[in-house]
């Protein structure tokens, strides 16, 4: 029987770590992910797990030590947010290129400039090209469930890539919700024992990690990473199927909400999907309009074909981004969804709005307005505001 609990997103991730009992966790405090290493340190202090904690002096060292531990043959992970992840940036690329099955619990927070501690996706979106698998969550339940699937995905021989499990800072990380926890034995079954094929501490087979690779090898190496990312798609779905069998909870690349007959669709990532669902329900109930939601769970690898298939025949689509990329044309999710739709020869009118930067609230009414605008665009085929901020004060 699943265990009913009330946990914050950070507690839920820490609880998943406890159930997994990984080998090494280097971490450095940063709001709002700090609680995760705190909880883990408590588990260690009380003998609940035999994980070794490394009290590193920076996030760069956190990822560096995680990488060293993973190469050595340990199951290793860390947690961070925002600027902490920015400081790891270089190491994210190295971890992916070294093909190490590291897991990172990321609590999304706006990058500094100005300093801000609230949710947005500028940290992980900036790392979207680093070669990490990225899985996002709407709720505490989802981040817990995603976290349990992370190591088996990362460690699958077809993949061998690092995995980032993302949740929205404060909104889910500190918000306490009802949650169903998976029994310890089932977690052990799912995650399994880690037996790396090659590792530094194998005295029978010395290995060398992290070479200088000249241009005759670099491009072939990148192609290998791409292959792993392609393979990750089937592995992610296999894990989701296994997880569903175990818990009854269904996961895919994205969640389709009220999409069967939807004409006006919002595409979004993370916790704001919950608010959007409320707007969908309200509009359908009160106005009977065919509105729907597509919530991205897996952003890397990007499920381009599947997403295009789900979206291409709709009347109008709004892609909502929680991070700027200053291309002066939109946000990262917008760019990729629009590229997918172009490839699928979609005729749907598509706009890209930005919302929630630095923790700005987005309300049911905001989503209602977006759906209203989509209806207008579909009717007039005119897009007056392709690239706009939702909830922005303006003169």
């Amino acid at each position: 029987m699943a265990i009913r609990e009330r946990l914050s997103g950070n507690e839920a991730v820490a609880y998943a770590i406890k159930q997994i009992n990984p080998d090494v966790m280097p971490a450095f405090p940063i709001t709002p992910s700090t609680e995760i290493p705190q909880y883990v340190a408590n588990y260690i202090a009380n003998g609940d797990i035999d994980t070794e904690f490394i009290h590193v002096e920076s996030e760069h060292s956190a990822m560096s030590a995680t990488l060293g531990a993973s190469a050595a043959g340990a199951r290793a992970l860390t947690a961070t947010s925002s600027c902490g992840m920015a400081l790891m940036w270089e190491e994210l690329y190295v971890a992916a290129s070294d093909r190490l099955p590291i897991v990172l619990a990321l609590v999304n927070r706006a990058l500094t400039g100005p300093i801000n501690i609230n949710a947005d996706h500028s940290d992980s979106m900036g790392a979207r090209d680093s070669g990490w698998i990225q899985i996002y969550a709407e709720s505490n339940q989802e981040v817990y469930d995603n976290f349990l699937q992370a190591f088996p995905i990362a460690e699958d021989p077809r993949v061998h890539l690092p995995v980032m499990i993302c949740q929205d800072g404060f909104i889910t990380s500190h918000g306490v919700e009802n949650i169903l926890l998976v029994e310890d034995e089932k977690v052990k079954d799912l995650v399994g024992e880690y037996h790396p094929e090659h590792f530094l501490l194998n005295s029978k087979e010395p290995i060398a990690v992290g070479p200088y690779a000249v241009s005759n090898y670099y491009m072939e190496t990148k192609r290998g990473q791409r292959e792993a990312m392609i393979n990750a798609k089937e592995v992610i779905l296999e894990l989701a199927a296994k997880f569903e069998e175990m818990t009854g909870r269904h996961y895919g690349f994205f969640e389709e909400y009220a999409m069967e007959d939807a004409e006006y669709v919002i595409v979004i990532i993370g916790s704001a999907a919950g608010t959007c669902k409320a707007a969908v329900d309200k509009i359908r109930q009160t106005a009977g309009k065919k509105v729907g939601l597509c919530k991205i769970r897996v952003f890397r690898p990007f499920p381009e074909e599947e997403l295009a298939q789900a979206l291409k025949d709709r009347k109008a689509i709004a892609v909502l981004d929680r991070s700027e990329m200053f291309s002066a044309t939109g946000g990262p999710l917008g760019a990729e969804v629009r590229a997918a739709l172009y490839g699928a020869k979609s005729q749907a009118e598509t706009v890209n709005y930005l919302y929630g930067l630095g923790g700005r609230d987005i309300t049911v009414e905001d989503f209602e307005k977006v759906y209203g605008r989509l209806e207008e665009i579909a009717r007039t085929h005119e897009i007056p505001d392709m690239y706009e901020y939702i909830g922005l004060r303006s003169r």
Partner: protein
Amino acid sequence: MKSTEINEKSPWQDITEGNKIFEPATSRHFCTGEWRTSTPVFDEEKCKQCLLCFPVCPDSSIPVKDGKRDDFDYDHCKGCGICAKVCPFGAITMKEGK
């Protein structure tokens, strides 16, 4: 995939995962002896087997076995001449060229 089977013409499928190498000391297959512009010549007669030349070699090119050195590993010696300078017995002389 063995490192000796990987070269600059290998297809991407043959490049080891994460560029890891699963064998020790594969650099032996790369001959740095080509770089030499001058060459140490070992005079076994003059050598007193003091081994002072051994640790100063940056290229591990003086093989020592059972406390005795052998002739140079010319596949790898770069001809820097440090060994010739430290030999107290004149058993190593540098000659021009390879």
